[in-house]
């Protein structure tokens, strides 16, 4: 039932996304096929892949640190990726997009590892503590990035990475995001292992899981997803937080069976935000990241105020 619902919503949104835009596809002087191939299809695909990827990255982080209130934007991951991007832009400005993404992913990996190290020192009693620590950690990394950008006159670049939006997505400039489809496939293969992480280190190890290697694999997947998204469209906060939590409430936390739902809902919500951003002030656009933040922040507050406490007895 919910499967059908998500699939239908996604199909409707894809249809809407393909048909909405400044260019009138039915006008005589416009090559509709070209507009589709160069702009509309890439933009739609990019929104779906970015949303799906960030939602999956969110659930991986949540299961890895056993806290459902964290997501990549609360682990310093995008800030670290931006710092890496800034570095490569300074030292080798002419690098290919793939090289830039690689550097951003490596920086994201280092930054997220730093958060994981912090996470082992934060008491687990109060689940809100870890996201706050992550917020501060990301803030420090972000401040360092901003300072570096300011000192080197690159603040404008930073702007394109911080606000996720899809108006700049054209054929030839978004294909890196297809990496997310591959990573989602990889994640599906190791879904049980990632779910086992949520049982905690001792328990997971006693079941024969290579805990460190599995966590590292999760970190690499999260870093690659975030780097790919930051490089192509800019960060989109809250997706990784809200989507896994909604799915968790409806279906529990078994990643193997949830993965298509998390990916589908993440893709659908970001695509919806992008479509909405295109029509609200037509013909101008509001970035999808901004639109989604409004929904995401509200959903986050709802999650905080409606916690499911375990029954005692």
């Amino acid at each position, binding site marked *: 039932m919910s499967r059908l619902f998500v699939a239908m919503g996604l199909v409707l949104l894809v249809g809407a996304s393909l048909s909405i835009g400044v260019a009138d596809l039915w006008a005589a002087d416009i090559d509709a096929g070209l507009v589709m191939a160069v702009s509309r299809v890439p933009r739609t695909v990019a929104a779906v892949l970015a949303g799906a990827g960030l939602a999956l990255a969110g659930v991986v982080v949540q299961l890895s640190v056993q806290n459902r209130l964290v997501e990549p934007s609360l682990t310093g991951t995008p800030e670290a990726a931006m710092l890496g991007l800034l570095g490569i832009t300074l030292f080798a400005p002419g690098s290919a997009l793939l090289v830039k993404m690689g550097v951003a992913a490596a920086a994201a990996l280092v930054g997220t590892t730093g958060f994981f190290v912090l996470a082992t020192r934060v008491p687990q009693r109060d689940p809100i503590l870890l996201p706050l620590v992550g917020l501060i950690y990301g803030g420090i990394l972000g401040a360092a990035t901003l300072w570096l950008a300011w000192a080197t006159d690159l603040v404008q670049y930073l702007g394109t990475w911080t606000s996720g939006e899809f108006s700049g997505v054209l054929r030839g400039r978004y294909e890196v995001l297809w990496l997310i489809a591959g990573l989602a496939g990889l994640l599906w293969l190791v879904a049980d292992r990632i779910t086992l992480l949520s049982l905690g280190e001792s328990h997971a*190890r*006693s079941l024969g899981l290579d805990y460190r290697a599995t966590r590292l694999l999760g970190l690499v997947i999260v870093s690659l997803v975030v780097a790919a998204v930051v490089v192509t469209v800019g960060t989109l906060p809250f997706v990784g937080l809200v989507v896994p939590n909604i799915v*968790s409430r409806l279906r529990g936390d078994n990643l193997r069976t949830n993965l298509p739902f998390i990916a589908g809902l993440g893709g659908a919500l970001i695509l919806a935000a992008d479509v909405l951003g295109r029509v609200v002030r037509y013909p101008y656009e509001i970035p999808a990241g901004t639109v989604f933040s409004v929904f995401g922040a509200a959903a986050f507050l709802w999650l905080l105020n409606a916690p499911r406490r*375990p029954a005692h007895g």
Partner: protein
Amino acid sequence: MTFETCNLSITRDGVPVLEGIDLSLPPGGITAIIGPNGAGKSTLLHAMAGLLSPHAGAVRLNGRDLSGIQPGERARSLALLTQDQGVTARLTVADLIAFGRWPHHQGRPGHEDRAAVADAIETFDLGPLAARTLDALSGGQRQRAFVAMAYAQTTPWILLDEPLSALDPRYAHDIMRRLHDLSRTGPDARSVVIVVHDLGVTARFADRVIGLKDGKLFGAGETGDLMTSDWLTRLYDTPMEVAEVGGRKIPFAA
């Protein structure tokens, strides 16, 4: 399958937690690890589960050094239930128990795995709760689900770290009775090692007792032989008595 520790020593951050532990556990029955807080009971259990590398000495399962056994094979020989699961994931009881089979199938469950899960659900009376998520269970139900998961792992040895903490007597006895039955049903009898604080439960259900004090072995042997007021008084450094009610020995702090 005997479980042995030879001169086992564990250090944590350079501080010795366990020193020179020599144990030999025959298969079958329930072995209770008791002792004061901070005696190293949990550490011993984790070391026996192969999760801590010894500073000196070794843990041997059937004569084989545990550190030389691959994690996957180890997980098919012994199951460990850790003390505070702290699991926030909203897994259903059935899913949780199914993860106990992971060492056997690594993600591709077969007929045997499904049968083992069904057996665990039945053995621990979890049928009505199978579709519920962990956060919707009471403390006792939750603990029973985790014990069932360790059971579904179908290992000759089951190690349980304080599975009775925070359980009222009814649930505690319920779990112990089930473990007791498992530990003596013919050729598939499981050997149970359990860290426990409740001496009444220990006296009633444990076949053997291991006493730990200050990281050292204080004594090990048959429950009936060891659990005397003198031995317990010295183990806990507090006056202990053993009363006999209806032919049953009940230790208590005097």
